[in-house]
């Protein structure tokens, strides 16, 4: 088997003392099309502890659907300040509420930025309804986690590029790394210093992590799991068993996230 102290440690203990994990793409609570054994905050913390995930940044499933649910996430962060931060979901199908959403966001603690779920909300990330949010995020140097998918008319890597050309201080996290349109996603992450590839679901594609590290650099890759969807050990295993160095693995599993989250801790 491949020789790596990190792999040995994770295989034996399920976690590593020297390599914590930060999960930059989580959700919480039940969801429409899937059965979750572990959907509650406490369930998720148990899973995170088992896998050595020291912190997760989430957007609850409820908030993806109803903007009024965003404030509920603040209560979770207050209850578990060492385990969670959150993204405030912007639903562009309620354009009349967006200014109010920004105002409410500005008064809350524990949020690192915004979540766009454009493929599901059926509205493009480049649409004008998102503009006030993007301008606010630019002014405050926030993170935006976007669901991105290859060839999507709403959130393809080419559309991310259009935003990255205009906004230089927002940290754009390409959720799922523009799944399927790998070459373009990697190119965008390489070209723009503020665009990151986030690995949820993408990690399963054999060879993709090596390709990303080679072309975009391990400093531009973030770990995520969609928890309570995916067992973190599955994604961690994909990172560990990729043909990259232990330094690359550490960058992906926690170092890059630590750097991005530092202003919000």
């Amino acid at each position, binding site marked *: 088997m*491949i020789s790596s102290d990190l792999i040995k440690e994770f295989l034996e203990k399920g976690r590593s003392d020297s390599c914590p994990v930060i999960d930059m793409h989580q959700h919480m609570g039940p969801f429409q*099309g899937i059965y979750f054994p572990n959907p509650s905050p406490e369930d998720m913390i148990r899973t995170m502890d088992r896998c050595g995930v020291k912190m997760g940044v989430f957007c609850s499933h409820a908030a993806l659907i109803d903007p009024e649910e965003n404030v509920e996430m603040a209560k979770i962060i207050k209850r578990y300040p060492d385990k969670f931060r959150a993204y405030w979901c912007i639903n562009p199908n309620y354009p009349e509420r967006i200014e109010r959403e920004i105002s409410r966001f500005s008064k809350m603690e524990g949020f690192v930025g915004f979540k766009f779920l454009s493929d599901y909300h059926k509205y493009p990330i480049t649409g004008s309804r998102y503009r006030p949010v993007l301008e606010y995020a630019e002014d405050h140097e926030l993170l935006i986690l976007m669901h991105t998918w290859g060839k999507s008319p709403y959130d393809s890597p080419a559309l991310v590029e259009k935003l990255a050309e205009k906004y230089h201080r927002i940290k754009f996290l390409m959720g799922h790394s523009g799944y399927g349109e790998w070459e373009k996603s990697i190119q965008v992450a390489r070209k723009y210093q503020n665009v990151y590839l986030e690995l949820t679901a993408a990690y399963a594609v054999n060879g993709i992590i090596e390709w990303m590290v080679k072309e975009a650099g391990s400093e531009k890759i973030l770990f995520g799991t969609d928890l309570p969807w995916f067992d973190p050990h599955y994604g961690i*295993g994909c990172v560990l068993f990729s043909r990259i160095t232990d330094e690359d693995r550490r960058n992906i599993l926690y170092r890059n996230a630590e750097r991005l989250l530092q202003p919000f801790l």
Partner: protein
Amino acid sequence: MIKPIRFAETADDLLKEMDFYGIEEALVYHFRQRDDSPIVGNKILLREIEGVHRLHGTLAILPPQTGELGSLEDLLELMRVKNIRAFRAFPSEHKYLMTKTALGPLYELMIERNIPLFISVNESCGGISGWYLIEKILSDAPELTLVVTEHGSWGHDRFFRPLIEKYENLYLDISRYELDGGISRFCADYGADRLLFGTGFPQWNPGGPILMLAQADITSKEREMIAAGNLLKMLGRVRL
């Protein structure tokens, strides 16, 4: 027919990949069995794994009525000679119906000889796909040993749990069973003997199921059953 990012060209290459991941043995098919005619692909597989004891082959099936793979006796004799102990179905690519009318004689052979049939949940035929197709196969041949591969990553428990409860010879591979807590909850509800370790290599990264199984919240005995024991037992039951 889409080329994976990383793959093994030959059996030797595949053994090197397995060494990298610490995988001792594998049940395999050749991409040509799926992407080409099974007439061509089955021969390529048999040639490639000849004398390679760590690789166990599967034969792609076709409806016996066309006689393309010879008679059922010919097929059985080939399996005896080459020690092949499993079938695979690719109805999407090979264009046939998985009905009792088309595959009844083959189903009877598989049931009589305990030969397992492997099929991806992503297959479809005649307008039926996914778990609906799996239920169709099992309702036609309830005693068939059927292994469904590649379910997930969007959780499929709502689909497969009713089938698991009804059909005792239905098995699942864990290559994409990524659901947090999925394996441990499944084992608690149904036992570990219905799950098989799989990777989906070269399409999917084997590191995922390896660490997931290594650290799943189950007993060592259950882990061993999923990792190897269940498949070895299944293949050991085959009577050629």
